[in-house]
């Protein structure tokens, strides 16, 4: 068994690095130019449990839309549509 495992590793050296699918920006895909701060449902997708803004390295949002998303979330927070922080 162990030898098999070793062999597999050697043979499929490339397979170890599985192909990571490139994340696409949700707003670019759906062709949304304006990130609406009133649209809580969409914004909520970028707010993990802790209430922080999801970094774009994780969400895959492009820099332009991340900047828009950022202001939208901050505006929504100001009127208590979204939390600043939660425990």
């Amino acid at each position, binding site marked *: 068994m162990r030898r098999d495992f070793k062999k597999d590793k050697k043979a499929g050296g490339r397979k170890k690095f599985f192909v990571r699918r490139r994340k696409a920006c949700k707003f670019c895909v759906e*062709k949304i130019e304006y990130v609406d701060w*009133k649209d809580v449902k969409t914004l909520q997708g970028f707010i993990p449990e802790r209430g922080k803004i999801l970094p774009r390295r994780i969400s895959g949002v492009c820099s332009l839309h991340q900047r828009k998303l950022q202001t939208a979330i901050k505006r929504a*927070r*100001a*009127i*208590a549509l979204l*939390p*600043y922080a939660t425990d």
Partner: protein
Amino acid sequence: MRLYDIVVVLSPEVAPDQATALVDGFKKILTDDGAQMKTEEVWGRRRLAYPIAKRREGVYYYWQFEAKTETVAELERKLRLSDDVLRHLAVRADEELRRSVKLRKKREAKAAAKPKKAPAEAAAEPAEPAEA
């Protein structure tokens, strides 16, 4: 005149008829100064994402209107003075709107240019063997 988005959060303790009177008062400030209401929505009672002044709920109102800067400044001053207003947010909407229209045009132009490019490439390819 500029386009504004505004959200007002009222305290849930205000009686409904009192709330409408209050809201009408705010709207009067706008209309008296020549502002034009574009959209008006009552989102109603919503749970606040965090407690404000020991309240867990708020009554939300949303308006979109065209008004002068001074008019909005006056409205915001009144909103701040009122104890029944938990929160308010007034932001310019015309700039963002213009930007998004521009972006959309840019994207459409790009999409229109793409199929044009493909035949151009196809035309260039048969030309190459002729050169050789």
